[in-house]
């Protein structure tokens, strides 16, 4: 999907009359940003599910969703800076509500890690992380509204009606790139969850082995490989 999108970006979509080739970074930057923000909000919903069900798996999902969104966020800031340099001549401008809001949201979610790692009790950690995920998830739209009000509209609003002057080919390419990016996000989240699950199982097995080895005093039993269940 992503490969299709990339192929379309390079061969199908017309070059922007004003910005030329650099404008193509738009097909990476905007989907990344949209997917990352949706990921943050979804993480808040997952956190709410954890508080409701007390099931640790929801907390893990929320954690991984935030983790992936933060990684995507780094990508957004970097591609955004490159685009800004090309289009406006500066790496960073302050009069862009979308840029500033995204930076604030990013800074907020970066503090998720010190919060999570500084609580030792696993249950409390899961609960506090969920409360953070909910609060921050609700904060994302509020922040965008507040910053938008504070600044003038300069950032291109690509999908609304007034600025919907994207030619058909561009729009198609953009939508495919968006779908591809969303799929990439989901795949990465799945992968990370599987690896976390496998790591947890491995640790449990290793602990079992150690206990057995120390209690019997005999040679350690051979290591058995257990295939990790997907998910």
């Amino acid at each position, binding site marked *: 999907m992503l490969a299709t999108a990339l192929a379309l970006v390079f061969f199908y979509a017309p070059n922007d009359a004003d910005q030329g080739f650099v404008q193509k970074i738009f097909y990476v930057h905007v989907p990344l940003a949209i997917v990352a923000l949706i990921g943050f909000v979804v993480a808040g919903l997952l956190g709410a599910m954890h*508080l409701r069900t007390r099931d640790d798996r929801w907390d893990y999902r929320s954690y991984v969703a935030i983790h992936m969104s933060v990684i995507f966020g780094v990508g957004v800031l970097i591609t955004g800076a490159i685009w800004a340099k090309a289009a406006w001549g500066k790496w960073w401008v302050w009069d862009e509500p979308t840029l500033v809001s995204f930076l*604030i*949201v990013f*800074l*907020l979610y970066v*503090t998720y890690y*010190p*919060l999570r790692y*500084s*609580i*030792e*009790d696993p*249950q*409390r950690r899961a*609960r*506090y992380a*969920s*409360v*953070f995920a*909910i*609060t*921050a998830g*609700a*904060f994302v739209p*509020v*922040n965008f*509204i*507040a*910053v938008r*009000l*504070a600044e003038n509209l300069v950032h291109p609003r690509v999908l609304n009606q007034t600025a919907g002057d994207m030619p058909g080919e561009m729009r198609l390419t953009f939508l495919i790139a968006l779908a591809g990016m969303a799929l990439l996000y989901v795949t990465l989240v799945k992968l990370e969850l599987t690896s976390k699950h496998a790591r947890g199982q491995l640790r449990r097995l290793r602990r079992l082995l150690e206990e057995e080895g120390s209690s019997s005093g005999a040679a350690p039993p051979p290591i058995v490989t257990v295939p990790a269940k997907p998910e």
Partner: protein
Amino acid sequence: MRPVAAILRKDLVVELRTKESVPSMAIFAVTTFVIFHFGLDRDRLEGELAAGVLWVTLLFAAILGINRLFVAEREQGGFDGILMAPIERTSLLIAKAGALFSYLLALELIALPIFALFFLSDGFWEALPRLLVVAILADFGLAVMGALLASIAVHTRARDLLLPLLLLPLTVPVMIAAASATKPLLSIPMETSGVGKWLAVLALYDLIFGLLAYAVFDFLMED
């Protein structure tokens, strides 16, 4: 409502007797004004610069008070007492937010006149009533957010470190709205247009995060 009043009264009495938070916040604010004077190399401020200096100082001073908010509970077993008492846990949040709100108001009653004395040429008394409305709405948001985040941070290992990290990004909308509402009030001559919109933003923030904090606080207080 009675547990809320009891906890709030306890906090205010403790503060009145020990004078732990508000005086430190006030001294910090005044010192920061002086620092700003040298940092900006300006004798008089107006408009957006005045609003920015005022609100940044108040926010940083608020962090001092928020850091102290749950310290007594943690060190002297107040949490256990409240968990064992047959009351709703959210009354702790409401009481703490109320205490913080009164600290912030007290801070502003001290810091605002000093700010005017240091930096404003005139027009302070004219702007004061509207400025107080802005301050009350902003304090409400800061108090709710501060009480919620302080109760999260107090149970972590790096608590004094974590609190500003969590609080600053979450209060950016309060800062935007408060500073933007204050800017026309401190301009020369004073303007009032555009203040209402920012008051509405502040009220919206207070409403959303007040309800949110009320909804999630229960989960922070189990065990």
